[in-house]
């Protein structure tokens, strides 16, 4: 399956996941946006050598994934694709920062490896949270949340159009590629072929845009984007926001794993 088909399949999966009725999808999307923002800021605000202190933060993406019934395999696959790039930049840390920091049994661990592990932990936490919240919310609810939070409607409107027509144009692009392969095209096309190939897709995009506009005008479009979706903030949304933000504040300023370790081992 080509990249294009795989990407479209993933988008369709995310759409389907978000349409189900789960405890996560019942929450107001504004609440989810706020809590995720607080989560990301809290995780990013740790110093570069924080490692065990990050562990309690795994609870949020874990809860989102479990309560939102997000398939673990899908999540793991996306993490595996996204992690190597950050790891490539992070690998400089163990090479450049060789000051010793920890002693585990007979092995001395340098500070560079600690900061490397910290970066990998952050990658896991932030990406898992973003994916889980997107899969539990979906683009339509998210666009409504953004509009309610003050983002200009011209942006959220065209975001929804992009979402809708990504499937349509993606399907057309996929059929064009198949047509080329069936006529003997192998591998990636040369630029002289790519120009007309992608160019025709671009032409179709323009023509589709014009047809959409005429259809909208025929239905009374006057430049204002209006939606029927009503967002209702409920008690459970307030509880959700306050509860998780309190937990993030606690986990940020109190090193919970350290406290737990001290309590168990009795060490000072």
């Amino acid at each position: 399956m080509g990249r294009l088909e795989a990407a479209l399949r993933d988008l369709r999966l995310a759409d389907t996941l978000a349409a189900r009725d789960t405890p996560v999808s019942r929450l107001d999307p504004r609440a989810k946006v706020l809590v995720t923002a607080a989560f990301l800021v809290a995780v990013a605000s740790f110093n570069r050598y924080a490692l065990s202190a990050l562990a309690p933060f795994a609870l949020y993406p874990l809860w989102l994934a479990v309560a939102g019934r997000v398939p673990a395999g899908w999540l793991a696959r996306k993490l595996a694709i996204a992690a190597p790039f950050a790891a490539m930049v992070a690998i400089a840390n163990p090479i450049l920062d060789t000051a010793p920091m920890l002693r585990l049994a007979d092995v001395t661990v340098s500070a560079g490896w600690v900061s490397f592990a910290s970066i990998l932990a952050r990658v896991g936490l932030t990406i898992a949270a973003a994916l889980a919240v997107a899969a539990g919310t979906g683009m339509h609810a998210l666009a409504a949340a953004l509009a309610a939070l003050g983002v200009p409607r011209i942006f959220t409107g065209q975001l929804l159009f992009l979402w809708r027509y990504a499937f349509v144009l993606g399907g057309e692009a996929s059929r064009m590629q198949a047509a080329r392969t069936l006529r003997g095209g192998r591998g990636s096309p040369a630029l002289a072929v790519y120009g007309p190939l992608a160019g025709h897709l671009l032409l179709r995009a323009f023509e589709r845009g014009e047809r959409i506009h005429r259809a909208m005008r025929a239905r009374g479009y006057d430049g204002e984007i209006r939606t029927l979706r009503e967002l209702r903030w409920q008690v459970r949304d307030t509880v959700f926001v306050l509860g998780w933000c309190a937990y993030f504040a606690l986990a940020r300023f109190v090193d919970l794993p350290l406290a737990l370790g001290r309590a168990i081992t009795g060490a000072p």
Partner: protein
Amino acid sequence: MHMADALLSPAVGGTLWVATGATLAWCARRVKARADDRIVPLMGVLGAFVFAAQMINFAIPGTGSSGHLGGGLLLAILLGPHAAFLVLASVLTVQALFFADGGLLALGANLFNLGVFPCFVAYPLVYRLVAGDKPSDGRLAFAAVLAAVLGLQMGALGVVVETVGSGLTSLAFATFAALMLPIHLGIGLVEGAATAALVIFLRRARPDLVDRSLPAPVKSRAVAGLAIAAALVAGVLSWFASPHPDGLEWSIARATGTEEIKPPEGGLHARLAAIQEKLSVLPDYDLPAEGTAKKEGETAWPEVSGGRSFAGLVGGLVTLLVVAAAGWLLGRRRPVA
């Protein structure tokens, strides 16, 4: 692959979020003011096109590898810089949310590197100036490649400054830049070639779509020239600033023996000094992390410092914004009673 959250600090990420958020609001207002109601569905489908086109690879001659379109410059040429910025924002949002391509905290930074530089610098100051009106195919291709290369170099430099400024990596500015900039030179050539191929094709098929009369984004070449000169002075010539004390510091040193007089410990002086220390984001025209390190030892001349360039460019930009705001406020006509 765009920047991940893991390498960004909340300070850098937050600052860039604010900057791109403000740019987004401004662009939304400009697009609405164009009063062309075709623009919203058009932006949507072109965004979908860029999204799909990023998955279509073409062969790069002579290397055996393949590349794909980024889309920033193409969107700016087809839609104008303001609408293009909005479209790029939505493409990046979808990528960050559903493909984990770029973090959410880093979304502001990614949009800045991939949106602001192509749409508001490379397109008006390079592409429009080089291509001019109704360019030939060759001239268009040259303009596109030049604009794409420069836009991506600026974007890559942005990534380096933001990552090093966040303090989570041990990479030094010079090393990271030496890795990023050459790679993005190649990527820029690919981007320019793909953009040129598409615009040339579109112009032959539907010339009315490409040669739309867009309002000239830069009022005169003089303004553009001055902007580029200011950026060069702040970003590059600042490295050549003399390390010797200036007139005031020299006089004080001759009179009292030290270059700066210590202020009194308590009272209003101390309180104002504390406030100033808290407010200064770039103390001594450098990034806070690097500045403290430099105070220890001797620095070479010219002092090639990313922190200094960043401070110079940010300072210049803030000054420009303040002056522009003042000009706008003072220039508004009051309704005649």
